[in-house]
């Protein structure tokens, strides 16, 4: 999801001065390009305060395929809400975005509504950087605990107060290349992947696929192994509990999960190195038959034109639990919160949830259950194949350093990557991970 902004292309120097193009002509073109770039980033006329519309400022972090769908939804929203001046701003995913949300809210001038990962709530100091959401206000627009899965709704609370409105659940799922798996004889008559149970069964399947591809069985992002680790660890009921200056972790189960990552690359069933775009490329060009990746990769694979489908995270330790997170709406802290704009923000969030069938096309499982249970969702392929994944989602333990693009994930990546590379044994990697957690716990929380 670290897609590059489309306007970056205007900076491509290879377009520079075309031969035969005069200096003036070039400057003129350059000025035009600049103006065009400005036009796409500025979202509204300079000032709409005087036209009587309610201004609603939304901040989000969607710059990939999901970002395009959000723009599509916003266009529809604007058409239905002539009285609202929605100004949506997309920031670079991850730390750059969270920094801006935190700083804006710290000054009491945050956006009216922002999208964040529910796993990052703790790091955004609910109550200080985030304003609570009135559940009655939201219920008035049709959003309450009856339309969202209970374990996801729970994540939105902090100290008994509601701080987030879940948009979706996004999880690791297993993609499969239809052609490769068919040749390996692993598809049923409806092109569904055969079910495996347990590690040995799964590895045996990967070996069969490797015989067909000649390269790998499974494609995984070895550069972002934390999520895979968390899914495998949670499949065994392993947990990390953070205390005041201490934590509890199940060493044996962590080792078992790490052993899986280690073996996958050691036996050549998965690549030793695969970073970002390589991972989907390995599946689409048939070097691997399966891929474990986030559901947001669906638009990427669709763009390649390869025949693929998807199913839940493989059953390695007796269940299909998978690592996941939820995008949700929050109200960043405002010193002078305006009731009218707050109302508009809640209505906007509810509208987006009710219309999240468009959002589902990008791969995320909508949080709003009536959409997931609808016939339109049934017709979405492969989205409807893994809707149960939302029920198997495993969130990370709450701490200021955990969550998507958080400190723990960043630091754990170092230790876990070495498993795929084969430069550390699971025992060594576990030691490094534990040192990392200890050092994160030993420092005072900045929130």
């Amino acid at each position, binding site marked *: 999801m670290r897609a*590059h902004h489309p306007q970056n292309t205007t900076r491509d120097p290879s377009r520079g001065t075309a031969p035969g193009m005069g200096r003036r002509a070039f400057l003129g073109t350059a000025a035009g390009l600049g103006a065009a770039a400005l036009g796409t980033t500025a979202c509204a006329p300079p000032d709409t305060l005087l036209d009587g519309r309610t201004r609603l400022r939304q901040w989000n972090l969607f710059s990939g395929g999901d970002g395009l769908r959000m723009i599509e939804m916003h266009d529809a929203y604007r058409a239905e809400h002539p009285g609202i001046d929605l100004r949506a701003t997309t920031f670079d995913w991850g730390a750059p975005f969270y920094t801006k949300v*935190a700083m804006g809210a*710290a*000054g009491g001038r945050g956006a009216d509504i922002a999208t964040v990962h529910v796993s990052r709530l703790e790091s955004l*100091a609910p109550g200080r950087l985030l304003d609570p959401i009135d559940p009655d206000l939201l219920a008035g627009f049709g959003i309450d605990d009856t339309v969202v899965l209970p374990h996801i709704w729970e994540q939105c609370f902090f100290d008994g107060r509601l701080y987030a409105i879940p948009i979706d659940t996004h999880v690791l799922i297993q993609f499969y290349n239809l052609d490769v798996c068919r040749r390996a004889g692993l598809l049923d008559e409806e092109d569904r992947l055969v079910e495996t149970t347990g590690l040995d069964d799964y590895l045996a399947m990967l070996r069969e696929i490797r015989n067909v591809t000649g390269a790998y069985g499974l494609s995984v992002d070895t550069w972002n192994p934390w999520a895979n680790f968390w899914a495998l660890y949670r499949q065994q009921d392993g947990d990390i509990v953070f205390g005041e200056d201490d934590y509890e972790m199940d060493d044996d189960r962590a080792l078992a999960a790490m052993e899986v990552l280690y073996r996958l690359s050691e036996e050549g069933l998965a690549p030793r190195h695969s970073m970002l775009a390589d991972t989907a490329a390995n599946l689409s060009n048939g070097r691997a038959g399966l891929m474990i990746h986030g559901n947001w990769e669906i638009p990427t694979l669709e763009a390649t034109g390869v025949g693929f489908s998807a199913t839940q995270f493989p059953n390695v330790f007796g269940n299909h639990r998978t690592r996941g997170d939820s995008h949700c709406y929050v109200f960043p802290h405002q010193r002078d919160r305006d009731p009218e704009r707050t109302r508009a923000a809640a209505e906007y969030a509810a509208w987006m949830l009710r219309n999240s069938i468009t959002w589902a096309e990008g791969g995320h499982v909508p949080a709003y259950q009536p959409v997931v249970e609808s016939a339109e969702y049934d017709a979405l392929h492969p989205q409807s194949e893994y809707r149960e994944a939302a029920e198997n989602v495993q969130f990370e333990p709450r701490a*200021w350093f955990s969550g998507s693009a958080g400190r723990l994930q960043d630091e754990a990546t170092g230790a876990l*990557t070495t498993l795929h590379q084969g430069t550390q044994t699971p025992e060594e990697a576990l030691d490094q991970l534990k040192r990392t957690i200890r050092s994160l716990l030993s420092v005072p929380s*900045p*929130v």
Partner: protein
Amino acid sequence: MTQRTHVPAPRTPPEAVPPAPRDLVDVRGGPPAWTGLWFVLPFLAFYVLFLLWPAVVGLGYTFTDRSLAGGPVSFVGVDNWRESLTDPALHASLWNTLWFTLLSVPLMVLLALGLALLTDHARRLGWFLRFSFFAPFVLPVTVMTLIWGWMYNPSLGLFNGTLGRFGIEGPEWLFSEDTAMFSVVIATAWWQVGFNYLLYLAAMRSIPGDVYEAAAIDGAGAWQRVGRITLPMLTRTTALITVLQLIGSLRVFEQIYLMTMGGPNFSTRTVIQYVYDSGFVGLRIGLASSMAYIFMALIIVASIAQFRLFTRKEEA
């Protein structure tokens, strides 16, 4: 590395500049100091506002537990400094930055010199060489890292694909702790050497032709002319390029961040990335400020040491 706008030091020694005509000095008369001040005031205001003031405020932050997420700030004494100085991850990242600098500075100075000599001696293809060697410099860092990232890719990339055709198993480039830093240095040299090259070329062009002519008449061969005339006359340029390259290399961040994110297993995490991780991902601005100050002190010491070294050489 950021763009550098310095120009090479003038070839002619300062004494050779003709003294300003007397009447010009007289015209200034009156209180010249004040008039000058008005001219530099706009710059000075921005300098104070955006450089000096933040630097002072940042130093103040290092003694607090200030968080990027706001919240109450309290004075913590030298805790941040103690934590920074004893943090093994900071030491490791300082070493990575230093290692990058040690590898890249000699390479990028010598390579630039070699390419400039080549161009200077080329009779026909001069324009083509100038274009080829300088063109990568204008690429944005994102484009450069994308191109090299794909070329380095161990399983799909150009390098290992080509090596594989000859039956050689290529290295893992960016993906191994042993080779990642070298790979970044090679890509950086390709991308940035053009600037040093241009400085060298400009300096070579300004060496008067009659010096070579005289040497040739005296029987100096081509190698002697390079060794005895070109190189000595480039000393000042070399000093300048080395200082600029040293500072540029110490500040390395974006190409590494984009190519390896500091990995594998932090083997390429530079000190600037660690400051960023601590301050912007970890929100601890006070701590990150103290790290930044430690790093700034090191850069200043390195620059002064090097400046001394080169000025002494020239005096000798």
